[in-house]
């Protein structure tokens, strides 16, 4: 049932003339079903929820990064005429709710009791009749802090004299969070020892923030008589959240309903459970009223899940002819005050293990030390499929450093080391089984679209004139679609996804999925997946997501897992329904099932095309009068739970061209060519949209985004004037293309694409900037490559951002 987009294996995309307004019964270009409501401003986000008698909650946050709480006086706030309750950590502690588990099995304070551990940490909350009063009353709370020395510099976190942050953990005497390793250390050391060339470079991936347009929030409504809690919340994983709420609060799971209405962007920011959600629930339980909490922009940037923050010592070993032999790295990971990384339990560094990239190596080894610092917790799957962004950035930067030292063309160097098509499935030296790939085909298309040789000629001419032009390549392999139950769970919840499909009597359908769209267009894509299998128009298929009472269990949307896991579930559940339809059709046509042939939308008697029944006729029959074949129940519906046998491995070749003003060091991204291979393409327009967003994100991280802190641990990125997101003016016209290498184990061969561009683009941009700086003898410069930092590099002192 695999249909290749436009039927061609390697294609340059022409988005100017593409007709997106098509009406495929299945895969193909079509406009998004959700867009009429979004572009009319008719979406329903958490903050649009209005309930009768609803109260408003605001959170008082710590102004300092590290301090003992001496006292909290809430009396003035309580006296505010519109305030209904003021709750502190001590109040929560009485209920046993002051601490909650994080997604990495650490604990995090809901409201601080003993100490505050990062600036912006939750200290108390106010519930009032309106959001203005709630916010005003925060200023009436008087907290006395005894300020402690903060741990801001991650490199000093394990110093013997560093203050201990996690005094809440029994016997904790340092800021060590965890150690982790992967690969074979001895084998890698042996390969390094005999290599002709070894290149070492320290590479920093700074702390960045997902910064979705919609901030996080919740409306909690506890109904005392029935004991029912309904929570509208910004959650990328409603089912996982419900189970965790049940386990933590003791409320029975069937009495909790978690609803994610429309979500205005997630990027991993809405995977964790934040203290604010818990506060809203507690407030509703205490006050017996619906309570809304919606954080503001500063709260979102300062306190919610960040991403990256890895300091990586990269080492690459090769022969002098350019055969890469091994990669070795040590990573110092800043996890903030609580370990809140969203990652499967056995993968505390996410999928960083794919740092071996797209290359056929003899050995690889990584050791990691993670530490606590006085910064916000997180480490989210920020459009990074669990730390693959860091891994790909490391390897693609190191390969360019190697090319620099060997004086080799970075394209030739990569080509020489690719895993070859016949080697798939390919097991990497860190144990990942890449499902399928044809890397050179994607690379060749990129080079052809870019006019690579011509660009190098232009660069040579410009260099001769003192102009600074850079060409950067990156080749990435992603690992997405977590994941097989045998390996992967989050807090003990297996990462398989359920799906239910019901065909109504008139042949319309509803498909209920466990994953949750945050803007990726699931209402369209999932309808198309089902349409392709069952022959009902996507317009006639409603996709339901984001409501635990309306959908089967599954782990949600992050790490590009929706299509690899839930997408597979949707295809398989449709096939299950089709199998039942076939039996009913055999009864209707009075032939044996083996004599029926499926043609998208109907069953036909083999050799007698005049005799057929449509899926709509079958649906009516399934619900209608008269007998069904022996042993067949009425109705036309099915349900499954899909457990992927492996991850899927999308890949791509990206090329970036930059110009740098030699006088001001301002970088302009002139061109960006992106060829993606995400296997089978369901809706090419939606894929292109995902790629465009990810590329923009990559330019942002490479050139301007960073959550930085001053020496007191105060976050310097607390507004969008300080934390810079790229605009249309900073990015070029995207030139995109694709190849199609289906996944062999996914039912429709699809691999997922949500994060590919975010993973692949930062190294392409940085490689281009560093290439432009070659005349200055620069081999590496860290993100964000702001004009000032590029100028530093031009002066011969590129400086790490932290």
């Amino acid at each position, binding site marked *: 049932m695999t249909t290749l987009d436009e039927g061609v294996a390697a294609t340059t995309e022409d988005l100017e003339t593409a007709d997106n307004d098509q009406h495929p019964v299945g895969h193909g270009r079509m406009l998004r079903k959700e867009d009429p409501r979004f572009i009319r401003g008719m979406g329903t986000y958490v903050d649009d929820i209005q309930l009768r008698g609803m109260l408003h909650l605001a959170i008082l946050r710590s102004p300092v990064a590290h301090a003992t709480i001496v006292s909290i006086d809430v009396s003035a706030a309580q006296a505010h005429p519109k305030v209904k309750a003021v709750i502190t950590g001590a109040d929560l502690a009485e209920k046993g709710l002051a601490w909650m588990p994080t997604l990495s099995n650490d604990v995090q304070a809901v409201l601080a009791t003993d100490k505050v551990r990062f600036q912006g940490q939750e200290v108390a909350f106010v519930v009032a009749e309106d959001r203005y009063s709630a916010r005003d009353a925060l200023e009436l709370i008087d907290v006395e802090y005894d300020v402690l020395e903060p741990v801001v510099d991650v490199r000093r976190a394990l110093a013997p004299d560093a203050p201990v942050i996690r005094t809440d953990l029994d016997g904790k005497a340092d800021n060590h969070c965890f150690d982790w390793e992967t690969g074979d250390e001895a084998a890698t050391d042996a390969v390094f020892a005999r290599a002709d060339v070894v290149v070492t470079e320290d590479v920093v991936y700074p702390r960045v923030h997902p910064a979705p347009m919609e901030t996080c929030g919740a409306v909690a409504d506890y109904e005392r008589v029935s004991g029912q809690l309904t929570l509208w919340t910004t959650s990328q994983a409603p089912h996982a959240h419900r189970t965790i709420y049940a386990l933590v609060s003791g409320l029975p799971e069937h009495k909790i309903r978690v609803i994610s209405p429309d979500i205005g962007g997630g990027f991993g920011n809405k995977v964790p459970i934040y203290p604010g959600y818990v506060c809203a629930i507690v407030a509703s339980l205490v006050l017996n009223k619906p309570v809304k909490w919606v954080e503001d922009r500063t709260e979102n940037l300062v306190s919610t899940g960040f991403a990256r923050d890895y300091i990586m010592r990269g080492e690459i070993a090769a022969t002098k002819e350019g055969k890469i032999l091994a990669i070795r790295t040590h990573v110092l990971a800043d996890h903030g005050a609580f370990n809140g990384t969203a990652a499967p339990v056995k993968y505390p560094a996410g999928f960083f293990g794919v740092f071996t990239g797209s290359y056929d190596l003899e050995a690889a080894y990584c050791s990691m030390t993670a530490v606590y610092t006085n910064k916000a917790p997180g480490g989210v799957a920020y459009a990074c499929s669990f730390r693959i962004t860091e891994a790909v950035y490391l390897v693609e930067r190191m390969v360019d450093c190697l090319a620099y030292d060997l004086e080799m063309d970075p394209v030739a160097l990569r080509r020489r080391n690719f895993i070859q098509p016949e080697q798939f499935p390919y097991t990497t030296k860190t144990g990942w089984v890449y499902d399928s790939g044809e890397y050179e085909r994607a690379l060749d298309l990129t080079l052809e679209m870019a006019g690579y040789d011509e660009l190098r000629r232009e660069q040579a001419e410009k260099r001769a004139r003192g102009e600074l032009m850079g060409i950067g390549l990156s080749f990435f392999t992603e690992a997405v679609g977590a994941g097989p139950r045998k390996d992967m769970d989050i807090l003990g919840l297996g990462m398989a996804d359920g799906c239910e499909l019901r065909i109504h009597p008139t042949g319309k359908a509803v498909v209920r999925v466990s994953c949750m769209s945050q803007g990726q267009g699931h209402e369209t894509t999932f309808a198309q997946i089902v349409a392709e299998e069952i022959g009902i128009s996507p317009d006639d298929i409603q996709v339901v997501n984001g409501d635990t009472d309306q959908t089967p269990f599954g782990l949600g949307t992050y790490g590009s897992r929706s299509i690899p896991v839930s997408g597979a579930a949707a295809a398989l559940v449709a096939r299950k329904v089709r199998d039942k339809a076939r039996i009913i059709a055999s009864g209707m046509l009075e032939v044996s099932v083996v004599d029926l042939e499926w043609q998208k939308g109907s069953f036909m008697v083999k050799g007698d095309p005049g005799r057929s029944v449509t899926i709509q006729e079958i649906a009516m029959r399934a619900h209608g009068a008269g007998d069904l074949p022996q042993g067949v129940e009425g109705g036309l519906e099915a349900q499954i739970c899909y457990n992927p046998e492996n991850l899927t491995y999308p890949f791509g070749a990206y090329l970036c061209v930059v110009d740098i003003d030699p006088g001001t060091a301002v970088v302009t991204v002139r061109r960006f060519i992106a060829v993606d291979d995400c296997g089978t393409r369901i809706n090419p327009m939606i894929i292109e949209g995902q790629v465009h967003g990810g590329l923009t994100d990559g330019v942002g991280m490479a050139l301007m985004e960073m959550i930085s802190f001053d020496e007191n641990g105060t976050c310097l990125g607390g507004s969008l004037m300080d934390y810079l997101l790229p*605009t249309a003016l900073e990015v070029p016209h995207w030139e995109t293309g694709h190849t199609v290498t289906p996944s062999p184990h996914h039912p429709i061969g699809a691999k997922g694409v949500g994060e590919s561009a975010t993973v692949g683009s930062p190294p392409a941009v940085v490689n281009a900037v560093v290439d432009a700086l070659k005349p200055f003898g620069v081999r590496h410069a860290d993100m964000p490559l702001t004009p000032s930092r590029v100028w530093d590099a031009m002066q011969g002192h590129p400086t790490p951002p932290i």
Partner: protein
Amino acid sequence: MQVPAPLEYQRATTVDEAIDLLERLGSEARLVAGGHSLIPMMKLRLTDLEYVIDINDLHDVLGYIRVGVGEVRIGAMTRHRELLDSPELAALFPIFADAERVIADPVVRNRGTIGGSLCQADPSEDLTAVCTTLDASCVIRGSAGERVVSMEDFHRGPYETAVAQDEILTEIRIPVRPSGSSAYAKVERRAGDWAVTSAGAAVWMDGPTIVDARVGLAAVGPNTTGIPEISALLRGRAPTEELYAEAATIASSTCSPTTDNRGTAEYKRHLAGELTRRTLRQAVTRIEAGVAGDMKGQS
């Protein structure tokens, strides 16, 4: 959503009424023009005002660009957008359009005013540098009457101006001198961001000779004097690359930037020089091309 603290709102329909309200409501009252500096600060609760006096109705009387004899007068309520689009300013002072194209974004430019910009006196604010470059003066009115102050006297330091609590800036006056042109350049980390450093230059020539020149800088410390050393250097000289380089060196050495997230002090110092060189060159190019005003002289 960030929400400001409780406040009272008043609307002034005449300049006198605005002054009267400022006097009556006292130190807790503040004028709001475009609101693009004041309201963000209120939302972040960085101000503790109790009353805002909305002067947007005064756009009718204070929103103008008038070309007079030897002088252009700009009303304090003239919006960024109007400065950007003005053919009069484009003809006489291309520096305005150069600057306005890189100030904030269209949403901010549609509301923000020149009066608000100068009175906010943010160290990175661009129009103060423009007005300094053009040797502008400011008309301030209070209940006791009107006074006119130079930019040097107007700008007292970061977030501080000569406008007293119960006064209002009504007009900016810019002298027009023959055979002059001007230019502005800014380095920012991203469109819509405040300047890492910006520089404006105005040059007046007599044939091949520079009669006078002024340079104004933003975001690199207090620079509201037009850098007299540069003026002194350039007067009476023929414009050459070497001369621009000398001026650039002065700009770099006289400014006093600090290191922050936008860039290091060292880099900003470099930019002050580099942008001085570029804007001087651009202003001269414009004069030589006979296009003081329009954008044809832009490279």
